[in-house]
């Protein structure tokens, strides 16, 4: 039934769309921005090879400080999200039973199905000068007048953590669900305490989930634009804003591409580092 030619044909037919997609939408476009980032405009339509865009990045403090700031804040966001999400994931996976379990899990999913824009908008309404929190604080007498809670780094972090939460909770829940209760029981049985069991049994077991959650959260935070712009205001200094500015407002594609390549390098480096440190494989961690 399966003649060699028939099999070849099937392989060819299935391979074509994927290769077209990979080349036209992923590989060539990224080579293109790499190419653009490495050139300098001499006159209309005439370019020469140059590292000027990268030199500009390193000589202009605004650029590299923003880059550094974005990276550090993304790492912080990832860490905070993990710390907040872990007990919640544990609760959903191990403590909650039956109906309440699926309800809680669904509740974690809901914000994800709503546009990030709407979520951020919600935070704006809560935190603005005339917002709910400000009014609440005045009501209980903590402050005398309206307080502006928007447009600072803490707020940006709150928004980023909120937006990322789901991407941490879901992988954690799915790995923790695979953890056999008796493993924890065995840890206690063999003389461990709660902290011990957590450190030596639970966390190593949940490592694949932790890594894939952290990678996704880090990626999303690094590449986020909405939350820093809306919650951080004009001076939020997020690196993606720089890319947008160069590309859309200033039409300086060379500079924008260089920024893009730098951001891509950073994110690839962090993903690679995360995988190396935790000894996970890329396709298994991401392809979940």
């Amino acid at each position, binding site marked *: 039934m399966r003649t060699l030619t028939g099999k070849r044909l*099937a*392989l060819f037919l*299935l391979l074509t*769309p*994927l290769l077209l997609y*990979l080349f036209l*939408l*992923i590989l*060539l*476009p990224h080579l*293109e*921005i790499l190419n653009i980032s490495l050139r300098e405009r001499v006159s209309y339509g005439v370019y020469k090879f140059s590292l000027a865009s990268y030199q500009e990045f390193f000589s202009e403090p605004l650029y590299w400080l923003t880059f550094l700031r974005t990276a550090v804040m993304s790492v912080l966001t990832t860490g905070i999200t993990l710390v*907040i999400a872990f*007990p*919640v994931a544990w*609760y959903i996976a*191990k403590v909650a039973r039956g109906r309440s379990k699926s309800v*809680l899990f*669904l*509740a*974690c*999913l*809901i*914000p994800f*199905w*709503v*546009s*990030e*824009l*709407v979520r*951020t*908008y*919600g*935070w*704006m*309404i*809560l935190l603005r000068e*005339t*917002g709910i929190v400000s*009014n609440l604080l005045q009501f209980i007498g903590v402050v005398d007048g309206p307080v502006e809670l928007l447009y600072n780094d803490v707020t940006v972090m709150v928004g980023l953590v*909120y937006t990322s*939460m789901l991407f941490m909770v879901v992988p954690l829940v799915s790995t923790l669900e695979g953890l056999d209760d008796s493993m*924890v*029981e065995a840890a206690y049985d063999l003389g461990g305490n709660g902290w011990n069991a957590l450190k030596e049994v639970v966390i190593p077991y949940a490592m694949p989930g932790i890594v894939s959650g952290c*990678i996704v959260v880090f*990626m999303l935070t690094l*590449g986020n*634009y909405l939350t820093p712009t*809306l919650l951080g205001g004009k001076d939020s200094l997020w690196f*993606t804003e720089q*890319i*947008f500015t160069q*590309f859309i407002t200033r039409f300086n594609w060379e500079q924008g591409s260089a920024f*893009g390549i730098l*951001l*891509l390098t950073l994110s690839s480096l962090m993903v690679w580092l995360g995988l190396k440190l935790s000894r996970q494989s*890329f*396709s298994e961690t991401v*392809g*979940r």
Partner: protein
Amino acid sequence: MIASIPQSRAFQRTYKAYISIFFVFLMAPLVVVAAFSFNDSLFPSLPWQGFTLDWFFADNVERQGLFHDDKIMESLGTSILVAACVAILSVLLALSNAFLFERQNFRGKSFLYSLMLIPLVIPGVILGISILAFGSNVANGLEDNHGIELEFLRPGLTMVILGQFAFISTICTLVISARLRKFDIQLEEAALNLGASRFDVFRTITLPWLKPALIGSAIVAFLMSFENFNTTLVLVGSDAPLTITMFDRMREGSTPVLNAVSLLLMLASGALALLSIFVQRKEPGQA
């Protein structure tokens, strides 16, 4: 810790309280957005001025309700069009990829699989600018050298669709592949053995098996496209999808119309999400 291990009362109470606070944190922004769409005020903020449906239905100079706001309705239509195209394209490519990765063996398969996953770890902004740059380069090349003008390679809906398709199709591939992996190949052999042609087998056995994953991934693709912002913002032309329109409004200074749109989106995406969960859960009785 787990139920079988005794814990102090205080610990349990603290844990429960923590979980409750977490869910308040999770729901607060959404509840607030929804609530203020009914506030009888020009601004989505306190004080509460009473209940109104104006922000949905009113049509006057001071207040223009959601259903009479042409700009918003138009971009809603644009979003639906884009999302539908992205969903269809993504599911088709994902179906082909699933068969490629689950059913074929060839050299370089695992390398290609890793390559296929890469769009998931590329920030959306970069995906957007790279496709924008590449599209323009091709369009310029064709125009300068051959005099061919390909308008769709310039920022616009086609580019938005392609940009979103670039990473959403990967997610669909994962969903459909996972389902295909669970398929017992003996079912196809059994059907062949009972006299079905290759096409019959695909139509009557394999496709029905994949149906929940196909519908589920189409819904996921639709929703992800609908709410995508980063990639879209780079590639958008004159027809703005809803997220872009809302973003512009938000920066101009928001009115409760935005709350009304948001509530509508929440309800619609919630319904779609529930539908996708329902479809995927209602597995045909597995043996």
